[in-house]
């Protein structure tokens, strides 16, 4: 299969596919970060994660419409405000959901799966009723369009670069929050031993609520970033949920580094294979190898050795 291409062409192909793999990596990582916090730290399976993302995407869409119609001179910068609004909207919804539903289910992780699946159906229908069934896309500001040519055969899109740098920034922020801040220490204490954490004066209920809200908020930001590379519809969230869970599980649920590594390997494998096989076969092969590796190493790539 390599015979038809010259060496230089092959090099360019790998760089280009590698770059599109990097965009896919950012997408996976953004989706999986929120999920890794919720699933890895709290043990809650949030099947509505995709819908929280879509909420962020809709918020971004409406913000862009608002700027386009009422504040055209500020349009180039709308995205930064939209991202913050998306974080707040998804986070507040997440906090509400935690209070209504999730907090009753902490001892029954499999039931959170069913309940949040129900939630995702409800949210999908609400989006369809309020925002319409058709897909919406945002108009990108001028500076995000176009691409940068690196060599004659290699060029990269600016919006892709933007998504990648956004992902890096958010990942660093989450890592700092979880490992350096006082709040992150409280979260990890609650995860390790809830009763003891409560006994030393940590308000575990509050920590749970904010952790869940943070995970959902990050999902909102992910959705916001998505609008730059694709359109959004009410059911788009469901398409990503399996991939996202696999990324989290493959990396080892409680490990941030594992999530990054697994998002990277899955996305690179898929985008490289995609060039040589059909898209669906590439996906099948990638998922199959992930499942195969998980069968050999059920706890994921990066896990702490713990006695169970």
């Amino acid at each position: 299969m390599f015979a038809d291409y010259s060496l230089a062409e092959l090099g360019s192909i790998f760089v280009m596919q590698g770059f599109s793999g990097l965009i896919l990596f950012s997408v996976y990582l953004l989706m999986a970060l929120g999920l890794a916090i919720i699933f890895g730290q709290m043990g809650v399976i949030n099947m509505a994660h995709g819908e929280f993302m879509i909420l962020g995407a809709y918020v971004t869409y409406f913000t862009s419409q608002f700027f386009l119609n009422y504040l055209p001179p500020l349009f180039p910068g709308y995205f930064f405000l939209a991202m913050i609004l998306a974080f707040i909207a998804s986070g507040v919804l997440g906090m509400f959901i935690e209070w209504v539903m999730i907090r009753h289910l902490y001892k029954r992780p499999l039931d959170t799966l069913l309940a949040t699946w129900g939630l995702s159906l409800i949210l999908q229908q609400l989006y369809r009723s309020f925002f319409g069934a058709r897909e919406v896309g945002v108009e990108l500001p001028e500076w995000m369009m176009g691409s940068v040519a690196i060599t004659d055969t290699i060029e990269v899109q600016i919006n892709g670069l933007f998504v990648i740098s956004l992902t890096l920034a958010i990942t660093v922020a989450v890592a700092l929050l979880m490992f350096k801040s006082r709040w992150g220490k409280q979260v990890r204490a609650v995860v390790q031993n809830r009763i003891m954490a409560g006994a030393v004066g940590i308000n575990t209920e509050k920590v749970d609520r904010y952790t869940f809200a943070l995970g959902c908020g990050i999902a909102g930001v992910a959705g916001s970033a998505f609008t730059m590379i694709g359109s959004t519809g009410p059911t788009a969230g469901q398409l990503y949920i399996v991939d996202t869970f696999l990324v989290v599980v493959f990396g080892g649920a409680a490990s941030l580094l594992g999530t990054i590594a697994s998002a990277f390997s899955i996305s690179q494998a898929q985008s490289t294979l995609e060039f040589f096989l059909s898209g669906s076969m590439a996906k099948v092969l990638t998922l199959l190898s992930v499942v195969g590796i998980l069968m050999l190493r059920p706890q994921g790539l990066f896990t702490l050795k713990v006695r169970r």
Partner: protein
Amino acid sequence: MILSRKELIGLTILSLLILAVLPLALDTFRLNLVGKYLTYAFVALGLVMCWGYGGILSLGQGIFFGLGGYCMAMYLKLEASSVENTKIQSTPGIPDFMDWNQITELPFFWEPFHSLPLTLILVIAVPVFFAFIIGFAMFTRRVGGTYFAIITQAIAAILTILIVGQQGYIGGINGITDLRTLHGWDIRTDDAKLILYFVNALLLIGCLLIAFFVKHSKLGRILVAMRDKEDRVRFSGYNVSSFKIFVFCLAAGISAVGGAMFALQVGFMSPSFVGIVPSIEMVIYAAVGGRLSILGAVYGTLLVNWAKTSFSESFPELWLLGLGGLFIAVVLAFPNGLAGIYTSYVEPYVKRLLSKKTEIIPGGTLPQGSPAE
């Protein structure tokens, strides 16, 4: 003794309902719909076995339903694409979708489906074999709970993508359609549909009996013990993984029977019954009926599907809200589903009515401990 007295009464009522009451009360079209729902009840029954009793939640039961259904559909399709039926094609004698996709030769994995006995064996054997591989790989390495659920879900996704992607070999997104005869017997007539309905109902009752047998056997008691305290069972010297593999394979086999009957009754099979969404919906049938109740699986399936059909006929938008609400309500308020509601609220009154004594039998307890975690 495979049935307690209470279960015998319950099974008799259910058999009367699906064998006599429904066929007499409904017209052919509605009865066909019920027949279709009953094929899902096989899956719900399998889930009661492996989720309720074994504590293993599989989100990929659609895989086994689909594999069983596809095996049956492939046989029927080969019969429908005989040389004289397909003589307008460029290569007669192969299914029409292969012809459309420029495939001139029957792929090797279609060959066994020329023979009916072999097909009937494969309908069960293929899904059970898949379940064995998955179960063996997962349970001997002690993967369980949420991880198992997510991995089965991923496998369901893989299978759907694979089927959809292979347009030429297995019909792609359209599935295998236009099925006509079973060993020369036309399955599209009203008479045939009625017969298939009864065959389906009898098979379901047979599977219910198997489930009751397993539940009351020593195996069933070990399963429940394992669900509640896996380590203690392991320390008592039992090989926990082999019991889990067995119940997972059993559930797969039962689901596959449902899939095959689905292909026969509905006349087609498509990937929309294989993937994640149908698989999770099948979990809700079992959950609504009561994850610990074998008979509840059938009632749950009938009820949810009946609600789905009648709701989506009149208020298509409300249906998704209703289904979502049902998921949440069952999990939060009625973890043991209809069966739980029955045993805690209805049964005490029934008992009081039946026995003339006025004392209230202390009911209100949920059956057999808490659900698996």
